[in-house]
């Protein structure tokens, strides 16, 4: 709860930093504040208190996922120190919106009432609609914002209708009571409601066949915002998804299990296969994020409480790798004027540091040992096999082989010799720190995955 209140206060303080024209110094308000929030999360560990008549409950699950989103925001804000150099006064608004969005992420990982779920989803989404359009004069940014807005509010509408039907069937919004009453309810409204909540979530996490908006939105939004959407929004959506379906809707398993099974397979294949044909880095990362959502959906299928740890590990390793790739991509596309894959050709020649970071991050995404990506995938597959999900694991393994192909393809670009190799790119100290932290994080989680796996 401290984390939630403190983060909201930091958001307001960041806006005030903008009012007082602190310009580029305004980043320190959220940055230091969020480090403080991390401390409160550590202090609250193992307390497991519910607040306000069980509207939110800060158990270890909630704290761990809030911690990941806040850490990701700290990384993104640190990169932004270099990236937004020379930007105008409105920069504090962007920071403020990012912090407010993370408030939504905290609510989404700690809710224990369907009303809080809806509010969390909206607090998370509404600032991101604005952020996606924050490059006001660029048509692609406008289009991205509008598409995200329409798809996002459409999905919330479906989610909300599902919540209303579940309320009608069980006469309660409380997760624990829904879990208790669920098996006794005969009404078809509960089944339909659960399926509508499911499809609302699938829209939000961009699972196939609801993924068509994601590549457009990711490509059009400003790079840093795309990194925000690919990491924080996705992690928060999964935190809420798993929290809801592993507690309240377990009894309705017969209704959603087969649907989710098919969607997981479709997401894994659609994401990875379409990524093969991409020529732009941002779009490739968009499809790869769809594919990674597929792996995380695999854990949802197990209906296993332990799967929470596996999702947490996967989210952490995915976040580290994604932020590193995005940081490199931002630098290269700024220097080269485009994020096309061809512009990465010969990156190694003049920028060995960036090329090595890119290599480690992409290796981690592709799931090559000893990096974090390998072990997080391994645990997901192991848990799925333990629950007798044999066929879907085979699909996932095939998908990850396809995935390795395009990650290595884009990586080979960077290590090829080329005459048009990018000039030496200046990497500022803050970005350098983030890149090194991501690489070290990927290595540590690869060697000691149990650090995170058994947290919850």
């Amino acid at each position, binding site marked *: 709860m401290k984390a939630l209140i403190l983060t909201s206060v930091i958001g307001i303080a960041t806006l005030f930093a903008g009012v007082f024209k602190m310009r580029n110094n305004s980043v320190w308000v959220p940055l230091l504040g969020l480090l403080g929030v991390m401390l409160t999360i550590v202090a609250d560990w193992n307390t497991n208190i519910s607040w306000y008549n069980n509207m939110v409950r800060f158990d270890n699950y909630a704290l761990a996922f809030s911690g990941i989103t806040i850490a990701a925001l700290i990384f993104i804000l640190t990169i932004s120190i270099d990236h937004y150099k020379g930007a105008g006064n409105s920069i504090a608004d962007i920071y403020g919106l990012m912090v407010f969005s993370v408030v939504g992420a905290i609510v989404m990982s700690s809710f224990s009432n369907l*009303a809080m779920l*809806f*509010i969390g989803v*909206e607090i998370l989404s*509404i600032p991101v*609609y*604005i952020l996606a*359009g924050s490059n*006001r*004069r660029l*048509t*692609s940014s*406008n*289009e*991205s*914002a*509008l*598409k995200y*807005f*329409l798809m996002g*509010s*459409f999905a*919330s*509408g*479906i989610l*909300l*209708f599902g*919540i*209303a*039907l579940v*309320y*009608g069937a069980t*006469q*309660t*919004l409380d997760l624990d009571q829904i879990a208790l009453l669920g098996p006794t309810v005969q009404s078809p*409204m509960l089944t339909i409601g659960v399926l509508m909540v499911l499809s609302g979530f699938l829209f939000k996490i961009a699972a196939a066949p609801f993924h068509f908006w994601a*590549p*457009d939105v990711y*490509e*059009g939004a400003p790079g840093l915002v795309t990194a925000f959407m690919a990491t924080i929004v996705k992690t928060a959506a999964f935190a809420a998804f798993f929290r809801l379906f592993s507690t309240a809707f377990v009894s309705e398993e017969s209704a959603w299990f087969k649907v989710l099974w098919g969607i997981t397979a479709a997401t894994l294949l659609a994401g990875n296969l379409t990524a093969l044909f991409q020529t732009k880095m941002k*779009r490739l990362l968009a499809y790869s994020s769809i594919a990674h959502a597929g792996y995380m959906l695999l854990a949802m299928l197990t209906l296993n409480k332990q799967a929470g740890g596996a999702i947490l590990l996967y989210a952490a390793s995915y976040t580290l790798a994604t932020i590193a790739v995005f940081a490199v991509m931002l630098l290269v596309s700024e220097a080269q004027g485009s994020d096309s894959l061809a512009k990465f050709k010969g990156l190694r020649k003049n920028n060995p540091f960036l090329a090595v970071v890119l290599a480690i991050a992409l290796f981690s995404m592709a799931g090559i040992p000893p990096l974090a990506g390998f072990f997080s995938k391994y645990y997901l597959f192991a848990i799925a096999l333990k629950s007798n999900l044999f066929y879907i694991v085979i699909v996932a393994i095939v998908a990850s082989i396809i995935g390795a192909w395009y990650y290595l393809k884009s990586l080979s670009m960077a290590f090829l010799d080329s005459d048009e190799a990018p000039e030496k790119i200046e990497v500022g100290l803050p970005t350098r720190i983030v890149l090194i932290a991501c690489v070290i994080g990927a290595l540590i989680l690869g060697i000691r995955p149990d650090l995170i796996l058994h947290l919850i």
Partner: protein
Amino acid sequence: MQELLQNVRLVPMEHYVWLSSLLFCIGVMGVLLRRNTIVMFMSIELMLNAVNLLLVAFSAYANKPEGEVFVFFVMVVAAAEVAVGLGLLVMIYRNQNTTDSQALQTLKW
């Protein structure tokens, strides 16, 4: 208040469910079929209001206030969403001089 709830209960619950499902479907069709973005916004509002109606009906039948309170939250969220959405539209109109959704198709594949 009790009298009001009794009046709500004069109509069978199924009717509320069907009516709001119908409104919701009209909203969904509006978002999917219309090209003017302002009409699409209106359709999303219609979807949310269908949910509000459903929540109020359920809450009157269950004789619990949760659903009615939730409706206030939904209204606030809907207002915030519209504020952002119209802001985005104004921005787009300034750049493109149109609010037709077909004009925004630069991002593909």
